[in-house]
């Protein structure tokens, strides 16, 4: 129990946000029935797009590699059901709007590819072999950024600390929480594999203190298994799960502007990614499914679903029996950084941590009023920018002037706009500056 009640570690700034997690926090992970058709976009990650390895009419099975990327920063994609390639064409994409995708009609048999089988002799695998498996299994960061994991785990300079991110600071989302509770052993095995790859002694698991069950369960299981991982309970505050803020809270280091975590000797990996690493290495299972929190006040049956990648949002919403009130907004991800969707005919991709549905009365379109310089945005900004100043620069169209306020430090967490009493669209302003001023 110690540490849960002691002074909680955290980062300066930020804001406690009503979590709405009770909608799904007690919903066990449940496997959704196979959809009749899946749409596998050839870009679901940061980096170059994959080249398709199949053509119309080809037979595929769950786990069959169907797309491969060139270049260092890229990944692979796999079929998530067994069946026939219906087409390869542009399709709606939750992040890119539209993207080439492999459309597969399921045969309903759900057969696995021959390569999906338990692996033996794992202890003998070298770092290079493990990285190759991760790349081949299409693993990317499942926290949302979808950065190829084999690149992240192979930094250009040595690191001394591994932080496993179980913070899940976005309101509404509970998929990581359920994963930590229900797949604790797999998670610990995944962490051990990652620890071996990055070759560090210090391993921390950061979890917000409002997820006590996960903190206690992980601590107990770590003791049973005599691992040397330290579970750090963090203050429940947004954006505690942002990489740089998590590093600051756990080891007190600040990643300089424009630098990456490895520059301060740290690698941060999401809990979902760690489990995916375990599955890829030990079970030979590529990343073709993930856990998605389907939630919102108006959702009839909110749930944590294990979903095949490529499943349409509309299929998932139908499985959750739709909504009690007319839909106002569909968001991929959480309410703070998630992306509004123009349609429910978009597929789940690797970065889809949640599908949040809001009613019309939950998305009141606020009118912007003048900035009263109250300073709330400055107090919450986790990277200590002056959000109000950037917003005023856009108002007066002084884009060059905005550069002095370091707009590129902004990770668009939205804390400033969240607290703004004048309802100013600060994040949009900063995005605009980033786009206009090259």
């Amino acid at each position, binding site marked *: 129990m110690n540490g849960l009640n002691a002074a909680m570690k955290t980062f300066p700034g930020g804001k406690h946000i009503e979590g709405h997690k009770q909608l799904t926090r007690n919903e066990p992970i449940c496997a959704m029935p196979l959809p009749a058709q899946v749409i596998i976009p050839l870009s679901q990650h940061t980096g170059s797009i994959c080249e398709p390895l199949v053509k119309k009419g080809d037979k595929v099975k769950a786990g069959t590699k169907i797309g491969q990327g060139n270049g260092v920063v890229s990944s692979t994609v796999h079929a998530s059901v067994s069946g026939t390639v219906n087409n390869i064409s542009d399709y709606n994409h939750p992040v890119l709007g539209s993207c080439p995708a492999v459309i597969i009609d399921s045969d309903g048999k759900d057969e696995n590819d021959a390569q999906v089988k338990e692996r033996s002799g794992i202890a003998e695998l070298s770092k290079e072999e493990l990285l190759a498996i991760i790349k081949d299994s299409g693993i990317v960061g499942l926290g949302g950024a979808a950065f190829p994991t084999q690149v992240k785990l192979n930094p250009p300079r040595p690191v001394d600390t591994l932080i496993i991110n179980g913070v899940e600071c976005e309101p509404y989302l509970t998929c990581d929480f359920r994963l930590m509770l229900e797949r604790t052993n797999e998670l610990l095995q995944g962490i051990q594999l990652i620890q071996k790859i990055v070759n560090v002694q210090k391993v921390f698991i950061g979890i917000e203190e409002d997820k006590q069950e996960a903190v206690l369960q992980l601590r107990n299981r770590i003791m049973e298994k005599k691992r040397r991982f330290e579970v750090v309970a963090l203050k429940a505050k947004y954006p505690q799960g942002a990489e740089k803020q998590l590093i600051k809270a756990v080891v007190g280091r600040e990643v300089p502007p424009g630098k990456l975590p490895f520059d301060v000797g740290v690698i941060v990996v999401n809990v979902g990614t760690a489990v995916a690493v375990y599955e890829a290495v030990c079970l030979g299972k590529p990343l073709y499914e993930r856990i998605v929190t389907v939630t919102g006040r108006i959702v009839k049956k909110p749930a944590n679903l294990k979903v095949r990648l490529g499943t349409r949002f509309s299929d998932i919403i139908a499985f959750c029996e739709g909504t009690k009130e007319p839909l106002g907004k569909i968001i991929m991800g959480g*309410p703070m*950084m998630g992306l509004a969707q123009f349609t429910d005919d978009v597929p789940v991709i690797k970065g889809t941590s949640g599908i949040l549905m809001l009613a019309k009365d939950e998305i009141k379109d606020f009118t912007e009023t003048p900035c*009263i310089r109250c300073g709330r945005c*400055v107090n919450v900004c986790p990277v*200590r920018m002056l959000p109000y100043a950037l917003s005023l620069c856009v108002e007066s169209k002084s884009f060059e002037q905005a550069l002095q306020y370091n707009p590129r430090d902004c990770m668009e967490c939205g804390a400033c*706009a*969240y607290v703004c009493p004048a*309802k100013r669209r600060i*994040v949009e302003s900063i995005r605009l500056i980033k786009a206009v001023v090259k």
Partner: protein
Amino acid sequence: MSEERAMTLSMTSSPHIRFPETTSRIMWTVFFCLIPSGIVSVYVFGLSTLWIIITAVLGAVATEYGCGLMAGGKNTISDGSAALTGLLLAYNLPPQAPLWMVFIGAFIAIVFSKVLFGGLGFNIFNPALIGRVFLMASFPVLMTRWPAPFRVDAVTAATPLAVFKDSFQGTNVLSQADIINYSYRDLFLGFRGGCIGEGCVAALLLGAVYLLIRGYISWQIPVSFIGTVAVFSWLFSGKDGIAGGDFILHILSGGLVLGAFYMATDYVTSPITKTGQLIFGFGCGLITGVIRLWGGYPEGVSYSILLMNILVPLLDKFIVPRRFGELK
């Protein structure tokens, strides 16, 4: 999904949720936190003060509404800032100020210190204080006629700070009839001569504590402002200087509590950062102390805030938070 359903989805950008707080709720909350002080004032100085308050508030709101019409129909009165300006102006006027003068003050405050700068958020000076110093400069006699408390027959009496200054500077211009010796209790409850809303420290603190708890104001400005005045007056206002001064008199008198909690904390005209706010409060306190002890007026809160308002853009330019990850 059918076409028509797709059309109805909102596509606005993240964050998709907002904290339920608005500018107008902040302004109106401050407004209502000031009400108790006004009630005490009506009790102490009579109904005339109520008419002054109403005239100032309505005058400010009407002026802002009129300016909005002239600027193309933009109605900004519901944000509450004009009403708050009017109320604060009234609280900075003597209890028997003529209503025509009150209206002029409200008009000047809104037009010359707010609208002409671009409206709410763009003004450099605290509008209510601009209204007050304009009236001070234009109608010095009417602005310094102080009725004694509970004397509706308008017997005038010097304010506690005027009495202090008279003896401190050895000018002895006040007649004995003008001098009332107030107890700290009288000063705390507002039973003394002075401006309408500044007297009852108890009522002002009540509202201020609520604003602090709600996070609508932060402690930095009031604490550094009042603290500086206290230390300054303790050091220099005694008989022989350096310590021994009656700092409690200086905290409880004049417009210090009203100014430190309700006017120096005005978001628009005070610094953004906590460090900037500490410097701002310190500067306000220093100028107030200098004016009270050695300046031409018995009271210096209004001028100190206005003078420090000038420095705010500079403070906001140079006192910025250390960039995340940047070396110290």
